[in-house]
């Protein structure tokens, strides 16, 4: 649905001695139809520039972006406006018109496309109902809470039946509970309307809760990208480490530290107890996280097994055979810390 290839965005130097800023440096990204795709990264990584390039609020320096097979950069002004009708966008600060009521805000996009008044009314009522704000149609944005404002933003973006929704940090200025309810709404709309969603965020929670796929953006480059479950099964994946932070504890020297990843049915099994019983070893849990990602229960666990890796090859093989993804972080030779770093790097 969205195909980005070799996208560069360079901001020219404004002052004489400053060098041009390369905000995006060769981005390749594909968002499939009907998918919720999250781009994560720290502030300054270029997330905002990236999403704004998709509907050409920023004009790319080079590279191409196809939305539903159409290269927006090649369109005329009129063609671009028409294409934008098919791409809704929501914003961190909502960007609602303060002078208009909720209903009038939702109707704004329809006014632009020339929908007659009566049809606008009907559609606005319909979409406000969908986002759960039917009773606030005549309120002004200043009378709404942050979550309600974002619902209006979503209603406005979706009134014209776009196929794609771009979300620019849409939950970043909301409290955790409101964030949850907005994410639930986006998820519902994704299912109900078959909406393709590209979102950018710095909150891992958002990726965890609703994204099917994710990409990590660092200094204008995509360093990791893919289906969430696949990423979780990738050794050294930064996204999966960020999704399931296990802390820094690396156990005692001389012992073997492993991380296991489990998903679906395996998450129901008493892995540690079984391992302990079967091999008669004292398994120490250094860290663990269990979450529901994309409807599947997944977890990561860091375990410390007594002795070096040679002594633990049997239990590790046993874990792998049972379908678990196992990463050996520290083999138990002298300097556990530095070795684990090397292993991580090799994995990445």
């Amino acid at each position, binding site marked *: 649905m969205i195909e980005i290839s070799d996208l560069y965005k360079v901001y020219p130097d404004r002052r004489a001695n400053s060098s041009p800023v390369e905000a995006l440096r060769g981005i390749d990204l594909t968002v499939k139809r009907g998918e919720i795709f999250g781009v994560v990264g720290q502030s300054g990584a270029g997330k905002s520039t990236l999403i704004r390039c998709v509907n050409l609020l920023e004009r790319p320096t080079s590279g191409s972006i196809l939305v539903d097979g159409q290269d927006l950069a090649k369109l005329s002004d009129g063609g671009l406006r028409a294409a934008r*009708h098919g791409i809704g966008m929501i914003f961190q600060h909502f960007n609602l*018109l303060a002078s208009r009521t909720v209903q009038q805000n939702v109707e704004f996009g329809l006014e632009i496309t020339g929908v007659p008044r009566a049809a606008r009314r009907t559609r606005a009522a319909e979409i406000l109902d969908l986002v759960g704000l039917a009773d606030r149609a005549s309120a002004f944005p200043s009378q709404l809470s942050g979550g309600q404002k974002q619902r209006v933003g979503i209603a406005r973006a979706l009134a014209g039946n776009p196929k794609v929704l771009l979300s620019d940090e849409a939950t970043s200025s909301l409290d955790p509970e409101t964030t949850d309810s907005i994410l639930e709404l986006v998820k519902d709309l994704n299912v109900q309307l078959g909406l393709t969603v590209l979102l950018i965020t710095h909150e891992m929670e958002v990726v965890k809760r609703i994204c099917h796929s994710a990409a990590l953006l660092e200094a204008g480059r995509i360093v990791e990208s893919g289906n969430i479950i696949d990423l979780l099964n990738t050794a050294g994946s930064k996204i999966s480490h960020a999704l399931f932070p296990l802390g820094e504890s690396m156990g005692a020297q001389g012992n073997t530290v492993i991380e296991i990843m489990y998903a679906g049915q395996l998450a129901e099994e008493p892995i540690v107890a079984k391992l302990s019983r079967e091999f008669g070893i004292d398994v120490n849990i250094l860290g663990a996280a269990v979450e529901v990602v994309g409807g599947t229960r997944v977890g990561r666990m860091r375990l410390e097994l007594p002795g070096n890796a040679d002594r633990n090859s049997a239990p590790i093989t046993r874990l792998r055979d049972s379908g678990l993804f196992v990463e050996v972080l520290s083999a138990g030779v002298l300097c556990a810390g530095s070795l684990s770093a090397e292993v991580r790097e090799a994995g990445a």
Partner: protein
Amino acid sequence: MITDWSAMPAILLQALAETGQMVGIALVFTIVFGLAVGVVLVGTDTGGIISEPFRSPRLGAVIHAVLGFLVNVGRSLPFIILMVLLIPVSRAIVGSSIGSVAAAVPLTVAAIPFFARLVEIALREVDEGLVEAAKSLGARRGTIIGKVLLAEARPAIVLGLSTSVISMINYSAIAGTIGGGGIGDIAIRYGYQRYSIPYLVVTIIILIVIVQVVQLIAGAVVRRLNHR
């Protein structure tokens, strides 16, 4: 001098009508051109909505610079000088350089740049994000100017307009010196030149009341418009 109280109402009424005519005519043109100039000033600024007219950033920059310069020139001339300078212009447009209609010409020329700057300030206050949201919905430039920039800036523009009207009433007193008439003219001719304290006091009271009323109306309108 003995005050002829019986003549006063007629004199004041006529003066009020003259002030109303001068300021009224000037106000209509000031609103139209002041808004236009304000929009173009903001729009042609770097990154503005019309910063690249006909796809030419240079043209936008030139328009911005020239217009900014003209506005500054208009703002830097003392009104009394402007008035004298514009005598031939008034004569060309109105056919006379005397009277309240003729005085409306310099009044308009002085008020447009003043109001345009206030419009500019009001428009700059509109969150850039709103323009972006409108763009993301596929809005044309005209729609963005009309339904986003001007619509959102309405309260500030109304306040700017009331400030402009009050300034225009001020200037209209000076216009009296070239035969424009009006309340201010009465204050100068009767109050200052003939030392008639009653006329001075009455005209001052009238001016104060007018300004208060203008401000009250503006305040009420802003309260209705402002939903922030």
